[in-house]
């Protein structure tokens, strides 16, 4: 696959919950091996958009989409595409750390087992934990409950858990919003490192974080009808120094009401 080709191509994407339109005519491309930040005020649909990329919205019975998302050039929502298989290729990390109430080892092993990993599970677990910069902290207590870890460690465990399945994309939904500043910085640094081998899409309500971490930033807003639309998408440095849209400018300078 050509590295310059976008990994996701979203065209006129709308998402409805029953009659309510949560997303309206989104057109955007997600660059491969880059970090794309989705920012915008609460209720602008940035998390909803993120969940379109791994079909998490399928789990909400009332949700349906119009328009199209191409993943690696093929329709993500084609009837033949299995959402379960898609989610093993497009990992997700959530707002609050959500390790399963199992051991650290079993948390990482979970994804490997359910997807029928054929290699050496121990090796895969060590590799994932190393990638998530957690190995040194937990290598002597892999059998301990994951719930005994600190919040920041739990979130890195969740990242390791996602990495174990060898995804191509990692979606992150405000991954540091429940963490203290130090743990937040650790996650941000990790995200930067991971972007060398993964495509990352990150939702954040923290503009400084978007500015620090991402290569590209997309700004969404909710219109009069409360449905979210894409205002501007560009290189992060451009969005944060010279946004093209006045609405972006107003939002990131805090003149937004």
């Amino acid at each position, binding site marked *: 696959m050509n590295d310059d080709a976008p990994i996701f191509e979203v065209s006129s994407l709308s998402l409805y919950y029953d009659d309510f339109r949560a997303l309206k005519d989104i057109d955007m491309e997600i660059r491969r091996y880059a970090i794309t930040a989705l920012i915008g005020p609460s209720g602008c649909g940035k998390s909803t958009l993120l969940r379109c990329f791994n079909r998490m919205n399928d789990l909400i019975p009332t949700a349906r989409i119009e328009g199209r998302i191409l993943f690696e050039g093929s329709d993500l929502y084609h009837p033949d595409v299995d959402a379960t298989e898609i989610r093993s290729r497009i990992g997700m990390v959530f707002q609050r750390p959500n390790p399963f109430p199992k051991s650290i080892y079993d948390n990482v092993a979970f994804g490997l087992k359910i997807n029928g990993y054929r290699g050496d599970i121990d090796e895969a677990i060590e590799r994932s934990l190393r990638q998530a910069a957690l190995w040194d902290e937990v290598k002597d207590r892999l059998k301990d409950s994951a719930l005994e870890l600190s919040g920041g460690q739990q979130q890195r465990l969740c990242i390791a858990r996602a990495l174990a399945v060898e995804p191509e994309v990692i979606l992150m939904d405000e991954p540091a919003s429940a963490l203290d500043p130090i743990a937040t910085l650790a996650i941000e640094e990790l995200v930067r490192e991971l972007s060398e081998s993964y495509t990352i899409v990150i939702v954040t309500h923290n503009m*400084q974080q978007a500015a620090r971490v991402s290569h590209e930033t997309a700004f969404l807003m909710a219109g009069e009808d409360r449905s979210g639309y894409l205002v501007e998408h560009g290189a992060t440095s451009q969005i944060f*120094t010279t*946004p093209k849209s006045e609405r972006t*400018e107003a939002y990131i*300078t*805090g003149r937004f*009401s």
Partner: protein
Amino acid sequence: MLRSEYHRDLRSLEDDLLALGSMVEKAIAKSLDALKNRDMALAEQVIEEDDVIDEKRFSLEEQCIDLIATQQPLASDLRTLITVLHVSVELERMGDYAEGIAKISVAMGDEPPLKPLIDIPRMADRCMDMLRRSLDAFVNRDTAEAYQICDDDDEVDALYDQVYRELLVYMMTDPSAIRRATYLLWVAHDIERIADRATNIAERVVFLVTGRLTDTRASTY
């Protein structure tokens, strides 16, 4: 999430910058008056008042650093702050040139100028005009005016070139006039530098509005 206090601070920062601008403009005007009217006391005053300009510049810089550290300005706010930082340095340097001119006045003492001051005051007028307009362009976020100022610098350069050659002729024909000619040459040079700094401000205005960093001219001096 209206950050009203922060935005009030930003606005007062711009006001302070304009205050610094008018202080510098007055210093330039006074230094030229002192030169023309051989007013020693006025020249001394310009030299003294340069300290006030320096202080004002540092206070502006501190305010900028404070806002950057505490408010994490972005987009136009960020560009405004960076512009204020740069422009305050340019203005402070202009103040130094005015001080330089005043010092030459003091050094010349009672000696009459080598030649009647015609081209030099004209240069100074153009310069101060450029300075005023560059600050106006800053206030109005007016890029057209900013580009115009950059073009106007050529005119000052041309005048300087003329003064320079004229003084060169004086020095060649009468070596005893070299010292007095050099005084005037320095004055002309200082004024020319002030004009260059005014174009720098104009370039910053372009950055402020568009986010583009440009060098609008290649100065010959």
